[in-house]
């Protein structure tokens, strides 16, 4: 069987095995399954010819011939980096889930947890390899179900609210996407044969008026997933309630499904949409950056802060996509990978302190109204605030420093390359917006440094003086991410070489190159 089918099939089979095997084996089976997918993705990387613009290693067979629905999978420069990212995040998520039963106080549910987990992994891989819109949509929806359960069953106190909000919100968006897919299908009939195949649709010249409507339909579907302001409020809730590994997956891969969708459909297939839509997208990107950063700064819950920082960082991806320049699209893909690694690190970092202290307030709520708002026992007020963690947990502090400074865009780490390429690519198209986005970088630095100051510096609180430093299992999850963040920061070509040919081959990118050739 081909690599790409195995990629989503292996986790699915893994899920079956998990269900059949005794539950004490669940995590081991999951580790093996995600390990195999990591290996598979590396083999795909090895077999991938980065000089080819179109998709490769593909499979194209009839599935529902009545409607010309095909099982069409393939990998190109737009998706390969994200497949590799998914493989890395998936296995790290398993490591982070190792004691999930105990950590979420749901001992004995490991079997169900890992079954859901593998189903989620399968959906993510499937989404990134699918090139037929129906397949694409199915995998998009497939990730929803396990995510709903993973948050709703293994989450925090308000898990039910968060899970249903996540589910309904995404479902709401995907309805528009489904309508747009169908409309695109019927429209393609006018321009040739009716098809759901993205490569075929991309090659067609569809009327601009139609494309404009479709563009917005797909945008709604993806915007909720990214999430783009004002559809973002499910994200902080989902993150706050989700267990650590699920937050890692959510921020690390699931959000990228939205931006990848924008690249795959809105840029590749609907690239000739009117200029106003792209400007709209760029504006939304900048709104995300600024609004997300401002909100992040106002948060008291560290996990919520990180969630809002994701909103901000995904804004760079949106701005870069809107620019449609080679730097922009390459930068957007790079930023997706980089943010996947860094947000994974950030949520793991949050998890480490939460497991030890059972809270994660940057500043512990003190007055009565706040205590009530955060549902905190009166007796604990004022005693449990952090501070001075750098002294009691030096190794943890070191890892945190890498994650935070990587996220605030320190050169030498991947976050800088992502932001740099995005802004360099956006400047020539949207100079004013680019400057505003750059202001967002400043706010980003402010909230991360302020958080460090309030949690890690200062005299240590005697209450937390004896906190054990980060342990080996947590380091196993964090160190590979940190290493990748630094490697990509020093050798960005490892990622950009994968995407460059496909990006260069995009019609809309060619148009932009021609437009700016004489500048």
């Amino acid at each position: 069987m081909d690599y790409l089918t195995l990629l989503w099939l292996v986790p699915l089979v893994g899920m079956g095995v998990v269900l059949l095997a005794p539950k004490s084996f669940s995590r081991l089976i999951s580790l093996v399954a995600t390990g195999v997918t990591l290996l598979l993705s590396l083999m795909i990387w090895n077999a991938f010819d980065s000089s080819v613009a179109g998709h490769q290693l593909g499979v194209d067979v009839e599935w529902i011939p009545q409607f010309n629905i095909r099982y069409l999978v393939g990998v190109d420069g737009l998706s390969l980096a994200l497949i590799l990212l998914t493989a890395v995040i998936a296995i790290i998520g398993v490591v982070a889930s190792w004691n999930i039963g105990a950590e979420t106080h749901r001992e004995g549910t490991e079997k169900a947890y890992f079954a859901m987990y593998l189903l989620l992994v399968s959906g993510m891989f499937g989404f990134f390899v699918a090139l037929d819109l129906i397949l694409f949509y199915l995998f998009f929806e497939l990730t929803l179900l396990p995510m709903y359960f993973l948050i709703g069953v293994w989450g925090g106190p308000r898990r039910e609210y968060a899970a249903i909000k996540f589910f309904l919100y995404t479902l709401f968006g995907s309805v528009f996407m489904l309508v747009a897919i169908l409309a695109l299908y019927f429209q393609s009939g006018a321009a040739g044969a009716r098809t759901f195949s993205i490569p075929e649709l991309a090659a067609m010249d569809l009327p601009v008026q139609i494309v404009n409507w479709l563009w917005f339909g797909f945008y709604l579907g993806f915007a909720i997933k990214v999430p783009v302001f004002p559809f973002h409020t499910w994200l902080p809730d989902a993150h706050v309630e989700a267990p650590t590994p699920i937050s890692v997956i959510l921020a690390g891969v699931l959000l990228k499904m939205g931006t990848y969708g924008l690249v795959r459909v809105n840029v590749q297939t609907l690239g000739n949409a009117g200029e106003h839509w792209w400007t709209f997208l760029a504006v939304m990107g900048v709104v995300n950056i600024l609004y997300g950063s401002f909100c992040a700064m106002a948060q008291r819950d560290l996990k919520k802060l990180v969630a809002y920082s994701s909103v901000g960082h995904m804004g760079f991806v949106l701005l870069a996509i809107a620019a449609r320049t080679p730097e922009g699209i390459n930068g957007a893909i790079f930023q997706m990978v980089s943010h996947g690694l860094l947000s994974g690190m950030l949520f793991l970092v949050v998890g480490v302190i939460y497991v030890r202290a059972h809270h994660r307030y940057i500043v512990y709520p003190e007055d009565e109204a706040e205590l009530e708002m955060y549902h905190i026992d009166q007796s604990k007020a004022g005693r449990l605030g952090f501070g001075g963690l750098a002294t009691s947990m030096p190794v943890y502090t070191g890892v945190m420093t890498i994650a935070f400074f990587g996220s605030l865009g320190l050169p030498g780490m991947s976050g800088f390359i992502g932001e740099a390429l995005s802004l360099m690519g956006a400047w020539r198209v949207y100079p004013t917006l680019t400057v505003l986005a750059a202001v967002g970088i400043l706010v980003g630095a402010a909230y991360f440094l302020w958080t460090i100051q309030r949690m890690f510096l200062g005299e240590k609180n005697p209450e937390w003086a004896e906190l054990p430093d980060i342990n080996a299992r947590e380091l196993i999850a964090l160190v590979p991410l940190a290493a990748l963040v630094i490697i990509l920061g020093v050798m960005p070509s490892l990622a950009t070489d994968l995407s460059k040919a496909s990006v260069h081959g995009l019609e809309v990118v060619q148009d932009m190159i021609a437009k700016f050739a004489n500048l």
Partner: protein
Amino acid sequence: MSPAILLIILFAPLAAFAVQILFGRRLFAPKEGEQNRIAGAAVPILGVLVSLALTLIYVLPSMFQPTDPFTLPADGNGAAWIDMAGGMELRIGLMLDNTSRVLLFMVTLVCSMIHLFAAGYMKLRDGLPEPRYTRFFAYLSLFTFAMLLLVVSDNLLTLFVGWELMGLCSYLLIGFYYEKKSAQDASLKAFMTTRVGDVLLFVGMAILWTHLGSLRFADIHAGMEAGNLSGGTLTLAGLLCLGGAIGKSAQFPLHTWLPDAMEGPTPVSALIHAATMVAAGVYLAARLLQAAVLDAAALMTLAYVGAFTAVFAASIAFVQNDIKRVLAYSTISQLGYMMLAVGVGSYTAAVFHMLTHAFFKACLFLGSGSVIHAMHDGLHHVHSHADAQDMRNMGGLRKKMPRTHLTFLISTLAIAGAPLTAGFLSKDAVLAGALAYGMKNPGHFLLPALGFLAALMTAFYMFRLVFGTFYGEFGARANEHDRELVLQAEPHLHESPAIMTVPLIVLALGALWAFWSPMDPMSKGWIGETVVQHEVWTDHGAANVAEGGADSHDAHNGVYHTAHIVTIALSIGVAAVGFLFALLFFGLRVLSSERFAQSNFARMLERKYGFDELYDWAFVRNLLRVCNASGAVDLKIVDGLVNGVGSAFVSARRSFTWLTGAIDRLVVDGAVNGVGRSLRWIGAVFRRAQSGLIQNYLLVIFTGLAALIFIVAMGLR
């Protein structure tokens, strides 16, 4: 010189950092109750000494005469760092031209001295072994690497990498004593303020990249020659890039972070906040001048910013009593000089002053460290809580600390611009350039005037510092509350150990005239011969500054030659006046500064013209206000809307259960109903989720999947 040598020079400190941060604590940290040993600093010291030794052997010989640049890769075109297909590439490479060579020499030497000094200085904190001794040196190593990377980069991109890594190290080191709130605040302020400049620089780089397609200095210069960027966009690009330089070099209006940065350990102040990192802003400005990115308007702006900052910072230094703060303001002022030099097109003078300043300012800072070290010990002995950095608690230290005194005095003479010092030569070059510029453009006479005024002020406040610290009687001016204990501390004062005084002596030697200009004072000296603006590229950049960079040593060079002669006389004159006033007020104390100290002007100076408060209000508070408002809006309005819609939906569904039921039964086609169905189905699944029957969930999911495919199929029919 082989490429390997350059790579070892560059990466030895990085390797030392990696070893130190990963294993330093495990291998070298003292056991409970033991003292810190120099071994704890051995790896970083070794790293920087390797760089220094290789620089002395391989780089020094080619430093004294014009030599072709050494590039890596050898063809001088750099290598692709990021390839975006279609010929679009971000290329990077390393380059050693003579400017880089002298800076390499300066950085490795000063860093080595400061590593050694710190090995002694950092052993104790408040009388106990420093708990983060090994980590301190890891940071120093990383810093050294970053500075070297900046110096040998042939492009703005890797320069920016080094630039920001230095910012990180600066943040970590200013906040090294992070238990103290003041140190935390200072580190945050330093990082954020310089980052404002960095963002401007970054946008400037984006403009250069967009129009020139490369960030390598050589390509930028070639693109400028070809006229690919001009007019308002060029001015904008130049000013934005200079924004970075202004932030890093703490020039007005981004100057407020540097005095606060003195919260860091003194060796850090010497290394990062005086000798090297802050000079990087000047280096960037000089490189931009060389690459012709700065047009006349940008240069004019820079010249005024520099000249104004030189006087502005010097005036604040008048009233400071913390010896490190005096030096901090003096650093800002001197950096202003260098910016002035770049602004008037005197590339060589700017680089020259940067070099000599590194030596005497590092020496001054380490000298102050030596004094603080002694004061700390002395005050600790008598359990006094008096401020070990306040010069009013000092006085007469020359007898107790002769070596520190002598080196401090030499460096003070150098910074004041006394003849036979390195500072005289370089300050002279800066002022001559400014004066020639003023003579050519009489409308800008203010530039040289401010330059000479700053020279006068420098001599005054520096000798105020010297007299207050090393002359007079010990503790005579301590406040009444502390005086008794401070006076008791006098017998416990002592000269610092050799590991601290030897670096002082080496740096003081660099502050003397002999090394820089072994020939007659009117000659250019080797530095003027080798570090010239146009050594690599043709003369295009100079056109922007109207011959401003011309050689003032050439007797046939009309106005420049005249300016040079006048400057020599005038600069000695103003320095002498400044010294004289300091002598009368603070040495002999025949004049009293009491009345001035009571004046409103002095109070304004003590408040540093109120910029800290202004920025705190304008940026910090308002940013917090915006953020808190955003947070509230998000919670109440944006999310409130979502929840409102959600609950409306739910109540509507409850009221019309019969309707949904009917719809479910009667109509099954179309995506709209899919949503309705899913809603009900979710509710059902959700109730089961509580029951804990996992198998049920899975059943539901597979059914759901099937249903989904069914819905899709129905939709198509």
